């Protein structure tokens, strides 16, 4: 229940979409001057709750309380006016405008009918100081690294007088160092008395940063810990999934056979030196590295999204024609991109359409016409096999939760045997239950003889699932570890630039 001492309270909040109850009587409170974690699997209702808080959704029932006053936001403008800011993963900034213009968007200082440029810069500088970031107000926003753009978003929220700040998985695209910086700012906000709601999937962050935690499951409030003393990782996980999860990776050794993927002297944009490595049939290799180490660039060369300048890729001994995803797929390499929304799903099409997008060309009638029977059967089978939670196969994929979208994208490639599968951050923004299912799936793939390449920024994930670990640093493969030799310390040490590591 929300109590008078709470800066932000949720009181019996419910949200119903036709056929789906996204939130069901959720009540809890967030104290001013505290960081309150909001946890739950994908589909637990976290995003819906944030959208209600930001005024994007009107709840079916229940109210918000701000400093004891009951509120319902009918628009995002109303939420902003009431001092609530929600910082999403996808930032709401205009890349073509300068930092200062973004910071004061919608409330530019004026002199008569004209924009007061001097005042704009002064005020922007003051806001940037609040987040202690060394960013020029005149820099074009689109040129800044993601972490700094996030700081700009925070400064913008503070500039609008936000007393309640909600973060939606803010660290998912940040490096370790940038994460530290963000945490420092959040702690600073706490000291200044802001109420902070912090949505994350990373439990380590909860214990490091947060003072309290609330867990949602299937749209219901499970528990609120007003203090985290005595609360363990296991307690939280158990209340999130409603079952015990001892080892989410469930790694089993497999037999490998030579001749899967061979990469020799591959060169292209983002790689400082030509790269060579091989992945056996049935082997899972992990690529670890800091953000910007060249992993995504390497994978985009592999899958044909970018044309290599030199080098050779072979699958099962036969060369792969580069420079086009279509030929790469034909020659045996399939790719699940990192940015699901931008590069993975086709949100306005159904789950069925998305699943069948690539495999259907092998199931035509008279070599020309789609086979509606196969389309239906395959989609239904993949949905069942991967446990995609969707109202029906005809549901638009954009309406699914992130984890279920990811499973549907995986299903796109699993409708037929694949030789090499490249997964770029396959579990980013996905809850633990879905993660565990995806790990099982990856191992099943490998057991069937597929060579698997996984790119991940999460060290435990790489160590937990991979047979062999490659570490990339500044555009080269800096080290290679067998599973037995891959200790967290050794792998991390190899990933850090020399100047920081020493």
């Amino acid at each position, binding site marked *: 229940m929300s109590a008078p001492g709470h800066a932000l309270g949720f009181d019996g909040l419910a949200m119903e979409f*036709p056929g789906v109850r996204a939130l069901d009587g959720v009540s809890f409170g967030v104290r001013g001057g505290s960081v309150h974690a909001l946890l739950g699997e994908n589909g637990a209702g976290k995003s819906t709750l944030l959208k209600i808080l930001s005024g994007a959704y009107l709840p079916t029932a229940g109210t918000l309380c701000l400093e004891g006053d009951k509120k319902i936001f009918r628009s995002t403008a109303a939420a902003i006016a009431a001092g609530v800011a929600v910082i999403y993963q996808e930032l709401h900034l205009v890349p073509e405008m300068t930092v200062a213009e973004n910071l004061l968007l919608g409330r530019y200082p004026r002199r008569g009918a004209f924009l007061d440029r001097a005042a704009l810069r002064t005020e922007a500088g003051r806001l940037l100081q609040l987040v202690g970031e060394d960013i020029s107000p005149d820099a074009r926003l689109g040129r800044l690294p993601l972490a700094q753009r996030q700081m700009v978003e925070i400064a913008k929220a503070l500039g609008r007088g936000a007393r309640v700040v909600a973060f939606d998985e803010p660290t998912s695209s940040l490096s370790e160092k940038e994460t530290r910086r963000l945490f420092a700012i959040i702690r600073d906000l706490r000291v200044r008395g802001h109420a902070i709601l912090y949505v994350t999937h990373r439990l380590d962050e909860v214990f490091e940063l947060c003072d309290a935690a609330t867990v949602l499951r299937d749209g219901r409030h499970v528990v609120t810990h007003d203090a985290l003393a005595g609360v363990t990782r296991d307690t939280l996980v158990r209340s999130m999934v409603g079952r015990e999860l001892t080892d989410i990776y469930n790694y089993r050794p497999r037999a490998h056979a030579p001749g899967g993927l061979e990469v020799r002297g591959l060169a292209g944009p983002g790689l400082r030196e030509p790269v060579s490595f091989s992945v056996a049939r049935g082997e899972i290799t992990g690529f670890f590295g800091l953000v910007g180490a060249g992993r995504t660039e390497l994978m985009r060369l592999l899958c044909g999204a970018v044309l290599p300048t030199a080098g050779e890729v072979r699958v099962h001994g036969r060369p792969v024609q580069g420079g086009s995803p*279509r030929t790469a797929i034909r020659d045996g390499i399939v790719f699940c991109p990192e940015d699901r929304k931008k590069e993975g799903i086709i949100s306005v099409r159904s789950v069925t359409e998305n699943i069948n*997008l690539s495999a259907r060309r092998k199931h035509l009638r008279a070599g020309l016409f789609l086979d509606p029977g196969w389309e239906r059967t395959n989609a239904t089978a993949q949905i069942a096999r991967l446990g995609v939670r969707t109202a029906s196969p005809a549901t638009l994929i954009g309406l699914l939760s992130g984890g279920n979208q990811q499973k549907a994208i995986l299903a796109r490639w699993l409708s037929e045997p694949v030789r090499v599968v490249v997964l770029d951050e396959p579990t980013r923004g996905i809850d633990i239950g879905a993660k565990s299912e995806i790990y099982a799936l990856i191992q099943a793939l490998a057991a069937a003889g597929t060579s698997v390449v996984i790119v991940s920024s999460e060290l435990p994930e790489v160590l937990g699932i991979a047979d062999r670990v490659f570490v990339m640093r500044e555009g080269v493969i800096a080290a290679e570890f067998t599973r037995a030799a891959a200790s967290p310390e050794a792998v991390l040490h190899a990933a850090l630039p020399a100047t920081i590591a020493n």
Partner: protein
Amino acid sequence: MSRPPLPSSSAFTRVWDSAGMLLVLAGLFLLCSVGVDNFLTATNLRGLALAVSTIGMVACTMMLCLAAGDFDLSVGSVVAFAGVLGATVMNATGSVLAGTAAALASGALIGFVNGVFVARLGINALITTLASMQIVRGLGFIVSDGRAVGIRTDGFFALGNTAWLGVPVPVWLTVTCFVVFGVLLNLTIFGRSALAIGGNREAAHLAGVPVVRVKVVIFTLQGVVAAFAGLVLAARMTSGQPNTSLGFELEVISACVLGGVSLSGGVARLGAVVAGVLIMGLVQNAMNLLNIPPFYQYVARGCILLGAVMLDRLKHRN
């Protein structure tokens, strides 16, 4: 921020989703049958069908184009140019076949060039086809010297002015287009690829959809079909007219939008597009029968388009 469309479950919204425009069409038809004199006569309905036949043909390919996230403003000019070119070549050679082939080939070439500029070179479709719209209109005037080109080959008129089973040939041709492109959109990889590209170009590309090829083929088809529609129109008028079909591209796009095709791509249904085409034609026909002056008809058509879009928007809001 924009709200995502919500899944709808009530019976009304489900019916509206799948057949909304067909219902509107049926309602309008009933209304006109009862309220407008001379509407429900064989002659009038034949005239109505003939009047929408040109838009109907081109709406098929425009639907594909919009589904893939592009659009094409050059179709009106291609209709005019193909008629003029076909007429000129027929008069020069005395051969219907040569004239038809020349017109269709020119349409294909224009569409292909549009496609290459848009898909291969990445020039915005609005700008590309705005340019080709003017270039092709100019070519039509150049070929005809700005005057209507009377066709002297009588055999050609059969394309426009004969009937089969009491229905004019152009209407049969339009129905054929509806069937062919309905199958293409719904039952072939090509159609699904167009929708996928319109829905998310980058995702489609990474999933192995040949984005550039599909787009070029769509624009080429669009050129061919527009040229064919131009020939049929020329046969109906027994001449190629360089001034015909001004503003035609907007009528075609309006019909598609009435038919629920998303301008941002990824969403298109042929049945609804057919309904959109017929609603446009029906309203026009009824206004003619009611003796509403043409100036007011423009206003009415624009209002109908806005109304339809608002209706669609409301559907997603509640």
